[in-house]
């Protein structure tokens, strides 16, 4: 459950959000965030923080990043009016097409940004973790592009269900390390990447794949992903003639969601809805609905909402989509939930699979299983809000999910 704030406290925190006061000097978004790291990494994080401050305020760096986004990633990504889906749902449905970004998901916005930063900071080796493989592929590609070696940690379970992405990473020159500890999925991969980083904090740069982890990562990733919302806001105003009534994005660690939501936080009239993995159902261990069913705690460097038992042991999760199968969530989402600015819902495996199929057939867009969760929730919302305009963050493409989908198609 989210922290309990009074209405006044919420309003004050919201105002601070709008005034860009978060993360604060301690790397906090209200009570959430911070930096819980081994002492070995403290100097590395200090350097990173200084680097982030310097380069994210350096117009030349931002231009070089923006240039890669335009020329290499293929931004701006399209905004699609989903005509048949709109008809079927009785609402006006728009899609922000991150699936069209190079390597197939929003992850590349962040990966190329951090790879450029790593280069500036003099890193000799990049490491990254990956769940669905999308961030791994994006990091492998970005590292190739900037000319740095890349090693990707991936849970052994995920390696199986996202096999095509493993081969893509290798083809792109990255080394892929199977992580066989813990739950052998995303969380274990992050642990392993951190452990590896400890072994050589000076030369290694860790490109984290979502808006999670110790400060300044949640901030850094948000900044690199906010390009989604900036583009989307302009596009929908131009193409649809106004703001949407509601915006949906799936939430694993929360990077595509924060990237899409960020430009709309000040538009109080726009409902923002993050959609987590409901898995098999609401019981602990059956899902990855961290915000909907979790409690506050410290996981992988940040104080945020996590899925844990009473002893503070982090729980394994279940989701049909590797990219949402994570027990934590970015601290900024924890704040946005606490102050009531964003609603967090969940969609089950079955609902996501159905939504994926419906979108495929209605619009000829094969979306990622992660993304499909947002469609499932949006569909429900549309049925309660006929005629309204809604925007869905189509965070990635589903090619990587064909193994899972084919298994489900066959029954």
């Amino acid at each position, binding site marked *: 459950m989210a922290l309990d704030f009074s209405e006044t406290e919420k309003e004050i925190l919201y105002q601070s959000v709008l005034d860009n006061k978060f993360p604060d000097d301690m790397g906090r978004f209200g009570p959430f965030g911070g930096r819980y790291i081994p002492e070995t990494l403290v100097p590395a994080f200090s350097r990173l923080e200084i680097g982030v401050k310097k380069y994210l305020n350096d117009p030349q760096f931002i231009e070089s990043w923006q240039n890669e986004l335009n020329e290499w990633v293929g931004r701006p990504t399209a905004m699609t009016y989903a005509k048949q889906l709109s008809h079927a749902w009785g609402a006006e449905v728009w899609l922000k097409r991150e699936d069209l970004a190079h390597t197939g998901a929003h992850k590349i916005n962040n990966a190329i940004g951090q790879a450029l930063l790593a280069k500036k900071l003099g890193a000799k080796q990049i490491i990254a973790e990956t769940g669905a493989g999308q961030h791994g592929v994006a990091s492998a590609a970005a590292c190739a592009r900037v000319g740095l070696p890349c090693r990707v940690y991936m849970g052994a379970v995920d390696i199986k269900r996202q096999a095509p992405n493993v081969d893509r990473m290798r083809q792109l020159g990255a080394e892929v390390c199977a992580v066989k500890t813990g739950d052998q999925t995303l969380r274990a991969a992050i642990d392993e990447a951190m452990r590896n980083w400890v072994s050589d904090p000076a030369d290694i740069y860790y490109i984290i794949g979502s808006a999670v982890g110790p400060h300044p990562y949640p901030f850094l990733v948000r900044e690199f992903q906010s390009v989604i919302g900036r583009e989307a806001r302009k596009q929908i105003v131009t193409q649809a003639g106004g703001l949407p009534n509601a915006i949906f994005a799936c939430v694993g660690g929360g990077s595509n969601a924060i990237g899409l939501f960020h430009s709309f936080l000040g538009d109080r009239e726009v409902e923002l809805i993050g959609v987590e993995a409901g898995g098999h159902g609401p019981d602990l261990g059956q899902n990855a609905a961290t915000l909907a069913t979790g409690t506050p705690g410290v996981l992988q460097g940040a104080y945020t909402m996590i899925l844990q038992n*009473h002893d503070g042991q982090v729980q394994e999760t279940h989701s049909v989509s590797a990219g949402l199968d994570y027990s934590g969530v970015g601290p900024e989402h924890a704040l946005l939930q606490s102050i009531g600015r964003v609603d967090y819902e969940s969609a089950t495996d079955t609902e996501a699979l159905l939504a994926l199929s419906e979108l495929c057939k209605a619009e000829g867009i094969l979306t990622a299983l992660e993304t499909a969760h947002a469609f499932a929730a949006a569909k429900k919302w549309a049925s309660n809000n006929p005629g309204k305009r809604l925007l869905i963050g189509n965070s990635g493409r589903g090619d990587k999910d064909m193994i899972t989908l084919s298994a489900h198609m066959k029954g």
Partner: protein
Amino acid sequence: MASSKQIESILKKNKRNNTTALIPFFTAGYPQLNSFASNLVNISKVGDIVEIGVPFSDPMADGMTIQRSSHQALINGVNLKWIFDQIETVSHQLQAPLVMMSYLNPLLAFGFKALSQRAKEVGIGGFIVPDLPLEESDELRIALENEGLGLIQLITPATPASRMIDLCAASKGFIYAVTMTGITGSDKGLSLKLAKYLNQISNLTELPICAGFGVRSAKDVEIIGQHAVGAIVGSALVEAMEREEDFIGFLKRLR
């Protein structure tokens, strides 16, 4: 009942006597639940201080051996309350004060105040929290110090001198000098670097310094002993337990 003062004074006595304190580390509830209490008693007979590891699901700063032991201990059903209760049943038999190593989240879940009180009751003098840097540590430190316990700070070879001063100032009981993975006592060149590093810390503080870096032999303990008060033996001890060897004998041979 232990306190950070007691820990400090034991180590200082070692220093005065020019002996190297041995600080065995092992994971609570590993390999079995029912051997924990007796293992603890036996280890306390060899060690000067005993470091008890609280298993955590996400041991982000541990090597493979400790990871494996934590994982097994959690499967065995260990939690913090159980650990305290077990310690309590044998606390009168313990011949060395205890410190506890835990990631932050299990401590958070227990509650800092309850934690400090209960730890004091069962004879734990200090805490080592590997994912809690100085900047985030006030709340826990204050809670512990209210009960006379201490938060033991870690220093690493990468820590800048200015930060070392702050860490020394904040630490209670001793300073935990981490050495980087891959450094072993047998390498002359590295042990020179190590000496410089440990001496640098010694010059900054009155607190005893304990170091641990894959101590596997009496030789390793000896080398550490030249520049630090105590040697922490973690992975090697847990590996001996894993191999079901006579780990008490192993510990004894380290002296």
